[in-house]
């Protein structure tokens, strides 16, 4: 069986699930950011695979992937800025200690 659309979609689902597990179970905010980047990459793989196999001459999936990369760059910058601000004020990056909105 030669490699087709399903292979890329399953790979994308596996990478997304690994990132989801990490994002839900980590006790370090920066590790959670790393896992979110894995999830965004998995979505990009699925979009580019759809673009290649379903509509190869349109390239719409490529366009979506480029916008996801732009949003991911913005997300990483703002996320790290928020982590820096919290670290300066509280001296921790553990999300279980950052609970001031729960009280």
């Amino acid at each position: 069986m030669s490699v087709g659309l399903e292979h890329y979609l399953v790979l994308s689902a596996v990478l997304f699930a690994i990132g989801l597990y990490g994002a839900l179970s980590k006790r370090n905010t920066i590790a959670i950011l790393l896992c979110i980047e894995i999830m965004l990459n998995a979505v990009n793989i699925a979009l580019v695979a759809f673009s290649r196999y379903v509509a190869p001459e349109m390239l719409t999936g490529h366009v979506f992937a480029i916008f996801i990369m732009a949003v991911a760059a913005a997300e990483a910058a703002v996320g790290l800025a928020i982590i820096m601000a919290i670290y300066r004020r509280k001296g921790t990056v553990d999300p279980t200690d950052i609970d001031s909105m729960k009280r």
Partner: protein
Amino acid sequence: MALDFAFWLLAIVSVAAALAVVLLRDVFRAALALVLCFIMVAGLYVTLSADFLAAVQILVYVGAISILLILGIMLTRDVQRGSLSNKLRFPALLVALLFIGTTIFAVFNTPWGVSAGAPVEPTTATLAGRLFGENGYILTVEIAAVLLLAAIIGAIVLVREK
């Protein structure tokens, strides 16, 4: 069949690198595994004949985002005892496995209208036409530019010393 071999190699190494990101206790090593995962994803774009996206992946993810994340790890290094798991570990594993199961079920039970057309190569000119040409995504490009500007200003405001 060189493409099939390349796909399996890239897929196995990228999944192993992603697992290393999640399972390694040292956050710095996890970030290095993430860089490997990004490079493998760029290789997957090459196997999908997305040459422009592969170059953008190397430039933006491997070049910029991973350096930003490693900088963040180094600035918060003195408090962390590594990236341990919290007590949601088993529910999270359950959610991830459920996600894989439902997605694979949906993938293999959907009639994808796979087209036999040859992929566009090189993609750069066609992609530029889609982004900036008539009936394209030019408004979205401008919104993305405003979003990036807002993100930069927001990041500066957040980390500025009072």
